[in-house]
Each structure stands twice: as C-alpha cells, then as structure tokens.
C-alpha cells in the first residue's frame, strides 16, 4: 500500500489552516478581482517577454553587424583632442560645465538633481492617478507646457551665454564684479537662474493650470528631463573645437592632436 504524498495532518486537525503570508490589501492584486481582469502569466506574459527579447536580440545583432564600436589611437596624455568630450550620456554635465563652476555643474547640481528625483514620492504622497498616463488631461497640458518652457529657456540661456562671452563678459566680470569672475558669474548667477526658473515654473503652473502637488511635480520633472535632453543634444551635436557653438551640420572635425600653447 502506498502512503498519500505530502505532509499529513495530525489526527483531529485535518482541517487546520496555515498562515502563509501576511498581505496588505493595497499592496497585492486583490483576491476578489473578477476573473476576466486577469491573465495567466504562462502563456500570455511570457509570450510577450519572449518576443520582446527575441526582437531586441535580433536588433542588437543587426546593429552590431552593421556598426563597429569606435576605436581610436592608443591613449596619449601628451596629445589632447580638441574638443575632448565625455560619452554622450554625460555631455549634459559637460555642457553645464561651460556655464558655471566645475564643481557646481559636475557634482553639486547632479547630486541635488538625483536627491530631488529620489524624493519625489515623499513630496507627492497622494494616490491620485496611479496607473494613468499624466494623471489627467490637465497633467498632459502641464507636461507640454513645462517641456516648451524648459527647452526654450535652456536654448536661450546657452545662446545668451555664448553671446556674452563673445562680447568680453569674462574680462568685464573679472575687472568690475565683486569677487571677480568666480563669485557672481560662476556661482551666484547660475544658482539664482536655476532655482529661480524652477520656482517660476511651479508658480506659473499653479496660477495658469491650478496645479496640485502631483501636477507641479510633473512640471518640475518635465522641466528637468527637458533641460537634460537639451544639454545632451547641444553638448553632442552643437559643440566643436574649443567647445564653441556650431550648427550641427557645420561642426568642424575634432583636431586629433591639439598642441597646447606654451
């Protein structure tokens, strides 16, 4: 005679239930959901995952077969390419470096940016609009407005900076500004501009669109993302030798070995 498989209940305890897990109502897919709202992971989700993985594998093979990863000459500390650029995903920071103090642009601003990003769920604690793109039509309008606001302002600021520098701004600041070119142009003015324009954006969306917490967070996030993209694009495609501004189709080739003037 074969014994039934699995652990056997003790005599008299055949109907004993076990507590498997403690589950909060809001954190788990509800048990009383209707059957038609759910799909079996095998096969429905796994098929999607499999197809996505296959398409990306094929795409990656195709790209890798068509385009070779760049490889230049052996590294030479005595030979500076002009311009020397970071990889594209860091060119946003390198672009920012041109407009303010290095430590501010390269370390302080990105750190504050990351901390703010991480803090978003602790600022906007409402559960409104979970799972809905842009929360509402108003959210979408705010997203579009903030994207235009930040894109236009960032491009303008880059142009204004280029214009001022072309007209002797640095020399003028060194001679006439308190603290020379360091205090105001490298620290206080950029900080004031970054903070001021961010606050202005929040004020505008509150006034114009009656934004609540979620919505002004959308505005600030969209603004950040837009600035990030604009800086990346300008740093990648608009900067040539000397990190000067060029039209993307007229950027001169990089000077591979720049002899520093002594």
């Amino acid at each position, binding site marked *: 005679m074969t014994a039934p498989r699995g652990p056997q209940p003790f005599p008299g305890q055949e109907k004993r239930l076990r507590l498997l897990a403690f589950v909060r109502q809001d*954190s788990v897919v509800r048990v009383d959901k209707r059957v038609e709202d759910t799909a079996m992971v095998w096969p429905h989700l796994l098929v999607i995952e499999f197809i996505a993985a296959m398409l990306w594998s094929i795409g990656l093979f195709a790209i890798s077969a068509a385009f070779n990863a760049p*490889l*230049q000459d052996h590294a030479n500390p005595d030979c500076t390419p002009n311009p020397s650029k970071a990889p594209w995903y860091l060119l946003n920071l390198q672009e920012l*470096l041109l407009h303010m103090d290095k430590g501010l642009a390269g370390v302080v601003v990105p750190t504050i940016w990351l901390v703010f990003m991480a803090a978003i769920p602790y600022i906007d604690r409402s559960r409104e609009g979970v799972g*809905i793109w842009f929360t509402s039509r108003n959210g979408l309008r705010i997203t579009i407005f903030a994207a235009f606001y930040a894109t236009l302002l960032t491009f303008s600021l880059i142009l204004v900076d280029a214009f001022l520098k072309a007209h002797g701004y640095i020399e003028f600041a060194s001679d006439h500004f308190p603290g020379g070119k360091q205090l105001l142009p490298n620290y206080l003015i950029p900080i004031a501009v970054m903070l001021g324009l961010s606050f202005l954006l929040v004020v505008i969306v509150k006034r114009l669109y009656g934004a609540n917490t979620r919505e002004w967070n959308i505005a600030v996030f969209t603004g950040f993302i837009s600035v990030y993209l604009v800086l990346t694009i300008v740093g990648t495609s608009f900067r040539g030798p000397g990190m000067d501004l060029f039209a993307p189709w007229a950027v001169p080739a990089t000077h591979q070995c720049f002899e520093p003037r002594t």
Partner: protein
Amino acid sequence: MLEIPAQIWQKTKTSYIWRSLFRHGYPDSRKNQSLAVFTNVFLHLHPVKVRRHALAIPYTWCMGGLSFFLFLILTLTGTLLMFYYHPSVDGVYNAYGDIKDLETVVVFGQLLRNMHRWAAHGMVITVFLHMIRVFYTGSYKPPREFNWVIGTLLFFFTILLSYTGYLLPWDQLAFWAVTVGYEIARASPFIGDEFAFVLFGGYQLGPNALLRWYVLHVVGLPLTVGFLIAIHFWRIRKDGGITGPL
C-alpha cells in the same frame, strides 16, 4: 511510423529523471500553467496571474524588462570579453592591444565587442525611458515610494557602469572622455583631490585608474546593480506588480 518517437517521448516524460526535473505536466491546463511559473526558479519572479492591463505594451513600453534583458546580455558578452582583456596600459599584453586583437584576430571578436558597446548605450536609454514611464504613470506612489528610490539609484549606477567601461579600451577616445570626469571629480567641493585620488588611484589618469575602473566595471558595480535589481523586482512583486488604474 510516428509511434516510435511518440513512445520515446512518453517514456521520457514519465521517467524518474524527467519527473525529478519538471514537477508538473505540459502547461496546457490552468493548474500546470500555475505550477510552471511558481516551481521554476527563473519564472517565479512572476506571479501566476497578472492584471490584463499589465500586458499592454503602450502602458509599460517593456522598458524595465528590456533594461534587465540588456543587463543580462551585457553580463554575458562582458564575461566573454574578459577572457581576452588585460587591464594594463603597456607591456606585451595590454588593454589597447587586446581590443585590437578582438577586432582582427579573435573569431567574432569585433561582433562581441560591438554587442557589448551598443547594448551598454541601449541600456542607458532603456533605463531612462523606463524612469520616464514610471514617473508619468504615477507609479512611484504608495506603496511603491522606496522602489522609486532604488530605481533612481539604478539609473545612477547604470551611467556609472557605462562610464567605467568607456575607459577600458585605453584609446584616445576613452582617455580624454574620462579626463573630463577626472577634472569634474577634482572640482568636487571640499574633498575634490581626495575623491579623485580614491576614484582614479592617483593624481593623473594612468595604470592605476585603468585597474580601478576595470575592477569597478567587472565586479563592484555589476554586483551592486544585481543586488539592487533583486530588491527592485522583489518589491514590485510585494507591491502588487505593475501599476494600473485603481
């Protein structure tokens, strides 16, 4: 004619060894489909059932999953690349020479390197897009607050992984791109020089920097990212899967 393979298949499926490997029948019934997911170590990250809207590609863009997929590809191609790579700036076996060998000597070496390179760029993009999707769908809201924090860390570490890898070919592109980072690190307020010294192993970009970034790239950062991914996925499950309208 087909009876023999059918019999072999039947014998295999009922054999002792097969049943020790697979603890369920072919997943064509609800019961076996459930068992297939939760008795499999690779699939058990999934629940047995998901809400239908979680399958909608316009909602998720698949970007989180594809980021993980690229991470796996990068781990695989990266491990293969490690067989051919010496983190050294000169000598008979040096980093630059190894990359040249990959391009000219190693069979499929160029393809391997290309795949690693483009997947790395791709992962920066997919992680970024994933973050955008999560933000605009409000998926950071309770109870997922802390998972969003882990996500921002993962974004940061993805960039760091990509950047540390950028130095390894030790060509002009790598050297001067990382010089930009070196200058930024040195400009950090208060601890600039010390920070740069720890990160680059010296006061200029040289053999120590290459070795440090290599170790970070192949051990330190992947382990960190793997650890964070594990928490990230675990919390997604515990918080009820992909978000959807309440």
